[in-house]
C-alpha cells in the first residue's frame, strides 16, 4: 500500500467494516466481525444446564474433564453438552456412549463405571457461595465398558 489514496481507502474500509456490526442485532454474532456480546446480556442467577457426570461403583458422582467431550475447550464442550443433553433420545445415548468410550480409555478414571447425562437447574450464586446443588434430572445413563 504505497500511495496515500490506497492507504486511506484500506484504512477507512477496514475500520468501517469492523464498526458496521453496530447495525446488526447485538446477539447476531460472527467471526471475526463480532458484536462482542459476551457477558453483555442480563442473566438471572438461575441456570438451566445440561452436563455429564461419572458414577463410581459406590454410586458417588465424579466430575468429568473437558477432554472426555472430545475437545480441550471448556466452552466448546459446554455448547456440545447443551445440544446433546437437550436433544433426542438417540442423540443423548450416542453422546453418552462417546463420553463413556473416552472415560474407559482414561486411567485416571478407572473407578468410574457409568456416565450420566443430567439436566440441572441451579442457582449459580448459591452454588458458588455455599455449594448448594439445585434440581437434577437424569436424561441418559450408560455403562463404561472396559476391556477385561
Amino acid at each position, binding site marked *: *500500500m*504505497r500511495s496515500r489514496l490506497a492507504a486511506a481507502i484500506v484504512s477507512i474500509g477496514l475500520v468501517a467494516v*469492523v464498526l458496521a456490526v453496530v447495525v446488526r442485532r447485538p*446477539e447476531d454474532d460472527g*467471526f471475526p466481525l463480532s458484536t462482542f456480546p459476551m*457477558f453483555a446480556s442480563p442473566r438471572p442467577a438461575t441456570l438451566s444446564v445440561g452436563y455429564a457426570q461419572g458414577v463410581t461403583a459406590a454410586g458417588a458422582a465424579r466430575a468429568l474433564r*473437558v477432554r472426555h467431550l472430545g475437545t480441550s475447550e471448556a466452552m466448546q464442550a459446554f*455448547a456440545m453438552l447443551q445440544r446433546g443433553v437437550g436433544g433426542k433420545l438417540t442423540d443423548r445415548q450416542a453422546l453418552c456412549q462417546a463420553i463413556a468410550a473416552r472415560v474407559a480409555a482414561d486411567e485416571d478414571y478407572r473407578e468410574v463405571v457409568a456416565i450420566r447425562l443430567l439436566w*440441572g437447574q441451579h442457582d449459580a450464586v448459591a452454588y*458458588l457461595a455455599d455449594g448448594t446443588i439445585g434440581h437434577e434430572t437424569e436424561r441418559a445413563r450408560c455403562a463404561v465398558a472396559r476391556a477385561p
Partner: protein
Amino acid sequence: MTWLGRWWFAPAPAERLAALRIAIGGFALAWLTARLPELVSVAQLPARTLMPVGVTRVLSAPLPLAAVVAIAVVTVLATLGLTAGWRYRLTAPIAALGLLWTLSYRNAWGMVFHTENLLVLHVLALACTPAADAWAVTRARSGGPPPAAGYGWAIKLLAALTCATYLLAGIAKLRLGGLAWAGGEHLRNQIAIDNLRKALLGSAIAPLARLFVAHPDALAGFALGTLAIELGAPLAMCSHRVAKLWAWAAWGFHLGVVLTMNVWFPYPLSWVAFLQMGDAERIVTWLRDCYLRLKLRV
C-alpha cells in the same frame, strides 16, 4: 491536506511497523501452531454440529480432515514468511486469508470464541501495509524511496482496530444490558454462571470468583471500570500518553477477567495486542542489544 490527513499520515519509522509485524506475526504463528491439535479434534466432530460463521458460511458440510490440515499447514508456513518478512507481498496475504479461514473454521462448531477476532483483524490489516520495509529477510522495498503514504498510517490503523473492538464490546453491553449493566448485578450473575458451568465441566473455578460473588458491591466498581475502558477506547487514538494509559487499563481489565472468570484472552494479555500504542521498535532493539551483548560475552 486536512488536519485529519496530517494526523493519520504522521510519519513513523519503518522499524516500528516492522516490529509490529514480527510481534503480531510471531504471536499468530505460535497461536496457530498450538491450536493445531484442537483444530484436528473439532474437525472430526459430527457433521451435524457444524454451524458455519463468517467466511465458512460458504460450507454446507464439513471439509475433509486432510483439507483442514493442509490449509492450516500452508497458513503456518505463510505466517512464518510474514513474520520473517520473506516474500512479504506473497506470504502476507496468504497468511492473512489462511488465518481468517482456519480460525473461522475453528469457530464454526457451535461456539464463537472472542479471543481471536482482534488477532485476525490485525493480521489482515498488516497484510495491506508495507510492514516488510525493515527488519525483513527479503525487503519488499530494496533501496527505493519510502512509500508516499509512509508507515504511520499503518500503525494508526492497527490501533484503530484495537479501539474499535473494545468500543463494540462496550456498545453491546449498553444495548443488551442498558445502564443497569454498570450496577454490578449483571456482572455478578455472569461470573457466577460462568464459574458454575466450569465447575459442572470439571474445570477450575476462578480464584476470586467466590469472593466477588459473596461481596457484589465491589463488582459495581469493576463493572463501571469495564464500561469506561471499553467506551473510552477511542480516546487512546488521541495521544501516545493516553494510549499507553488506556492499554494498561485494558490489560488490567483482562487480568480481572482471568481472576474472576478464569477466561483467558492471550492476545491482549501478552501485550502484543497493545504494542502499537507505544514504541514497538524499542523492544526489538532491546532484544537485539541483549543478543549482541551476550554474543560479545561468549
